């Protein structure tokens, strides 16, 4: 009888429980922030991770912002304490509520190093630091300013390009071409701008240079589209600008990691991860925004008096 009991107990005890690939859930902070030299408002978004009963994360229907955290960014010019704010959500298909974030009013400068500290009431914290990339440049227009000022005369050139040295600590960059103009309305002159279509994706900074180009046809058609949009109004074209944003290496790493699924060369199917937070997830990145401008001459052919 004793042996039988032992055998039965052995048989039941030895059965494995169903496998779950889930380890113990630990509350972690998820922090996203990108300091930019291109704006006076800096944001930090602080969330917590979450778990669901099954395996469908979309069961989580509430955003998990961490409210009331102490968020401080310390730089060479002192510490900046962030305050709560609400931002409109661009996509409300999953979460309806506005985005809870932290904001502070300061503009970092290139080459400055900042330390981020997030401390929540429960005692958990996340820290990181980042150094803003150096300014890019100097830049030069290719083939030259003559093409910007008189694009339709020099028919042998098909592209307008600009190039300069990349700033230190730059992982990748992206850019825009903008045409700034003033249009005369009933109440006076009003400033406006239009984008010239160009490369939208951040580019690898492999060669230590940043640069951009746009098709001359797009440049001309952008000028003409302004004239058409404001038909009958006087227009003065003021500037043609190359606006370049240099990502620091942390943001660059994160950017590429998130887009691993867009890696057309890979044979791997794993789930990559990257964070530069000392604990938790997310990224503390930075960028430098530089503007290289060419002022149109008063005699610019596309001006309409």
């Amino acid at each position, binding site marked *: 009888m004793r042996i039988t009991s032992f055998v039965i107990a052995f048989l039941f005890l030895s059965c494995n*429980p169903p*496998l779950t*690939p889930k380890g113990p859930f630990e509350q972690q902070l998820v922090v996203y922030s990108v300091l930019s030299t291109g704006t006076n408002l800096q944001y930090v978004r602080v969330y917590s991770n979450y778990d669901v009963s099954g395996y469908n994360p979309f069961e989580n229907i509430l955003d998990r912002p961490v409210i009331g955290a102490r968020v401080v960014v310390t730089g060479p010019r002192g510490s900046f304490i962030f305050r709560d704010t609400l931002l409109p959500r661009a996509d409300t298909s999953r979460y309806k509520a506005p985005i809870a974030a932290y904001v502070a009013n300061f503009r970092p400068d290139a080459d400055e190093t900042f330390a981020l500290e997030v401390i929540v009431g429960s005692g958990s914290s996340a820290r990181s630091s980042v150094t803003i990339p150096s300014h890019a440049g100097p830049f030069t227009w290719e083939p030259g300013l003559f093409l910007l000022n008189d694009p339709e005369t020099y028919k042998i050139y098909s592209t307008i390009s600009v190039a300069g040295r990349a700033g230190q600590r730059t992982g990748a960059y992206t850019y*825009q071409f903008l045409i700034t103009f003033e249009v005369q309305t009933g109440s006076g002159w009003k400033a406006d701008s239009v984008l010239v279509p160009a490369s939208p994706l951040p580019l*690898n900074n492999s060669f230590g240079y940043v640069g951009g180009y746009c098709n001359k046809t797009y440049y001309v058609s952008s000028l003409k589209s302004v004239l058409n949009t404001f038909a009958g109004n006087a227009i003065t074209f003021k500037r043609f600008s190359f606006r370049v944003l240099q990502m620091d290496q942390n943001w660059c*790493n994160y950017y590429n990691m998130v887009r691993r699924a867009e890696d057309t060369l*890979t044979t791997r199917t794993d789930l*990559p991860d990257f964070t530069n937070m000392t604990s938790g997830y997310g990224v503390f990145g930075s960028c430098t925004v530089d503007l290289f401008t060419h002022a149109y001459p008063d005699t610019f052919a596309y001006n309409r008096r």
Partner: protein
Amino acid sequence: MMRATTSRAISLLFLLAALATHARSQGADVRGWVSDSLTGQRIPFANVLLLGTTRGAATNGSGFYMIPRVPPGRYEISASVIGYRRKVGHVVVEPGKPIEMNFLLAASPVESEEVLVTGVRRREIGERVISAQVLEPKEMKLTPALVQEDIFQSLKMIPGVVSTNDVSSRFYVRGGAGDQNLTLLDGMRIYNPFHAMGIFSLFDPDIVQNVEMHTGAFPPGYGGVLSSVVSVTSRDGRSDRIAGRASVNFLSEKLQLEGPAVAGTTWMVNARKTLFGETFKRVVNKNVPASFFDVFSKFNVQLPGGAKMDLGMLVSSDEIHFPPATRFIYFSPPPEPDCFWRTSAASGTFSDLVGNRVFLQTSFYFTDYRATRDVKSATTGTPAFNRIKEHGIRVLTTSYTDAQNLVYFGFDFGFPSVEYRLTNTSGKPISSYKSYADGSIWLRYQARYSLWNVDAGIHADFGSIVAREQGLEGLQPRVTVTRDLPEGWKLRASAGLFSQRMITLNDEDDVLTYFDAWVKIPDGLSIEKAGHFVLGVEGGLDEATSIRVESYYKRYAALTVYNRNKLFASDPDYVTGTGNSYGVEALVRSKLWILDLYASYALGWTRVQNRGFDYYPRYDRRHAINLLVSAQPVNDLDLSLRWEFGSGFPFTASVGYYDRLRLGNPLTNPVETETGLPYIALGEKNGSRLPPYHRLDFSASFRFTVLGFKGSLGGQIMNVYDNINVFYFNRKTGASTNMLRFFPSALVKLEY
């Protein structure tokens, strides 16, 4: 410079071989073949002894033996091997006149004690080579397996060999990865030696003459893998009459026919087909997704004088086909991709004594392996296709220099092509195709000096050297030294270097996978390399108990691992890492009352170093236990009970979710207002462990003879206590598929 060095090295190898084979004869050679008296089948590993002397030899894989330089005189000579009655004859040796003495041995009933306790110690291979086992069908019959005996079920009894997810070509040997094992059938490389769900191997025991397994420090002649070698030799068809064998069980049906053709020729055809679907459909009205078939055929010619030619062919097919919206009794119902595996292989072998003392074996082989993952309506996975075609020639010469010394020289030149097509995670089709020359040359010397046995040689991975994938380290020395101790105990030490050019790709972070794609190691990466060091002792504790203990250390100088620092598409997917594994194994065999006991235990650790990151690989298993008890309480009734345990493999646990922002182009889309997408947060890499794998199997078999038919009636229960052993797990969906659970089955087998 490199080419000149390589050329000199090869010239040296040939010179050494020539010198070694140049023997001076003082007496005369006694040589011959040992065969089955009934079937004519050549018998390998038989011991031939000149009684009253210390001279003797073992037959090689072709059943040939030679005792060189026997002094003139009259001798009694005996031949014996497990499973056969010993036979004694007389020879008269005259100077300079070689004597041919052939033996026809009559089979005797299997004595399990003989098999379990002393079987391995009798084999020549065990005398000089460490970590080696030879299994014969008689031994496989003692291992309970689902429905019918199976080679790999028996091999898993060997300490250091573990397997859980065996539907892919995965078994793990001493901390080695699943793709580091070489499986050969008559010289043909088999890339996926399992049938679906891992219940059966491709090799029906009824076609097998013997299986030779090396779990480490294998000798020259075997290359291209880092961990282990399983070499299956098929048997010949019967030469005395046409015979047949048919069996039906719940899961498969089989028909085997064999017999003589014209004089000196025999043939055999063996076909198996799954009955999974029919059984489950009729018995429990459920669908099971796995099915398979295999056909093996062999034709051989024995020429006058002992030469022999064999032609063998294997065709096998496996499917895992998930019908949509179907509930399975043993499988969860998630829509998973269908998978198909096909193997076609053929070989031709010629063996004969060339000259007086050189035995030649030449093989031509061809293998075509295909694996397909068909997504169809599945919500997970991407389409994939993998194909390996390989043909080549393998030549082995054995020179019998004197009574105690053997020299082996051989080469193997193959021409594999590997194709891999995949739709990757971004939906982009990727394809790679590599066709290359592979080759190896080896020289091996076996000698005995008093109490010392030495087995030393060099295996040159010629293909990788010529392709400049490695330098002179492609000349791989391998040595085993055995010291005879008092009372039959033996102490062994062994070391060797190994390399591997083909690997399988799978997701390192997946919990379990069942589709592995073979590829050649990507250009720019080092081929995989390892060194083995083994120390062992074995002997008899008493008349009824033998024990073998071995410890090992394996250093992986180069392993292909994930590039954890990959951030850009242009970064390589894989980089070269390192690793090591070490452990100790014990094997005890004993006879206790009517019980034959077999117990093995393996304790091991494996670590991988990936550019400063150190972790347990997915195949790290800490403990493995195998217990087998068999009994023959009455004549013709065999009972056996087997329990297998393996501690859980590591995996990377999911530790929750978080929403990832894409943080795209801030010049056009403000990052502050973006909504993230959920992402699975992973814990420490391989920091968690799967549940332990364990299973208890029971089998009973009764042999009978009715109306001239021999037969057996058997019953088996697999997984007696219905343990849940996970077969596959999808991290994203939570869908799991289990290995077979409690499963009773029956078998009827008839022979004529």
